[in-house]
């Protein structure tokens, strides 16, 4: 009972990690293309990352 829950939480955390990584990478790309929009891109990046992070934490707490 305990182990599948932990594995499931681990999978969700891997997913969340990939997601945040993609957001960070895309934001880097976007900033490189349009350095003048850095502020706006950062804000949007942080919000999206925070939302995904919430899912990751929810999974950890469910486990």
């Amino acid at each position, binding site marked *: 009972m305990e182990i599948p829950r932990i594995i499931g939480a681990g999978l969700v955390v891997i997913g969340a990690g990939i997601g945040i990584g993609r957001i960070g990478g895309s934001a880097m790309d976007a900033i490189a293309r349009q350095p003048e929009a850095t*502020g706006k891109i950062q*804000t949007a990046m*942080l*919000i999206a990352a*925070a*939302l995904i*992070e*919430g899912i990751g*934490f*929810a999974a*950890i*707490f469910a486990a």
Partner: protein
Amino acid sequence: MVFSKKPLLFIIATLTACLSFSGFAHPVQDSVATAAAHPHEATAHAAAGAGHAEAPVLSEADQKEAERKEFIKHHLLDSHDFHLFSYGKDSGHETHVGFPLPVILWDNGLHVFMSSRFDHGHAVAESNGNYYMIGHHDGKIYKTDAAGTVTHDEKGHTTNEKPLDLSITKNVAMIVIVGLLMFLLFAGLGKSYKKNGSIAKGAGRFFEPLVLYVRDEIAIPNIGEKHYRKYMSFLLTIFFFVWFMNMFGLTPLGINVTGNIAITAALAILAYLITTFTAKKDYWTHIFWMPGVPVPMKIILAPIELLGTIIKPFSLMIRLYANMIAGHVVLMSLVALMYKADHALGSPLAFLLAFVLTILEVLVALLQAYIFTMLAALYFGSAVEEHHHEEAHH
């Protein structure tokens, strides 16, 4: 985040300077054999490291492990006294350094006494004929008899009766202190505009740009020029409260206020109530009868959207709580690793990691305050948004 050259050099210099200290935490010197030979040295040792995490000086490795776990757990929990550090465990009589806080209980009458009567959980406190003790597992106060009898259920939870606890605990004390600090700081900042020809002075010079940042970068873009004013007081309070609490959590006082789910829940509930009670007609239309969608979809969407209004503040609560508690656990574990390492390189490495992580935590403290404020502003913005349907749904 821009690190200019000077602070970076300063950080590296501090790091190098501190590296030599971490050698003191080496387990060979911490072991009982040396402790017995040089009891004074060992005592000074435990006291020096204690502000962050005391490594218990004991022979059994398992017992050490258990004590580390216990210490980390106690750091994360709320408690009835400020415990700074303790020393002298190996010499038999342990001395705790800290200060007690008032205990206020409602148990068929008011009981008020200082938590020093508990003697750090070792003694049974007597008040007006009733006896109380602190549970070892959760740090909560239980009613007991003169001998301190404790009953457990099969899961190991204490089953003694719990009185209604209204005590000024560590967290409550810190909330009051931070509240006062914020009041003094920002009242002073406000006043200095009147006196000084609209120029902030003193600490206000540091906080003025932050207040402006919350207004110009968080409130106005998310809520809109028209409505942002009435939410500013809440957003500023939340931002500085969460930030100050996070920063105090990193001090050796060892408080973990924003890592307490009751407190983040209170903040999230406030955000929810404000969203709900200031919401305009458009907000409710978009929840119960989404325009521009076929009728069967409208019926399916309504409960989901309604649930969404609750999930939003719920995620605010979980995010702050989990971030702070995870940061503290990792940091404390690394500090504990410093005392546990078997190799000569282990301790300095753990120290380095803990040091870098502490700097990261300072960043996370600000980031979490920003995210909380930002998302609260986003939710308020959705509540007062006025949709022009032809333009909005293009």
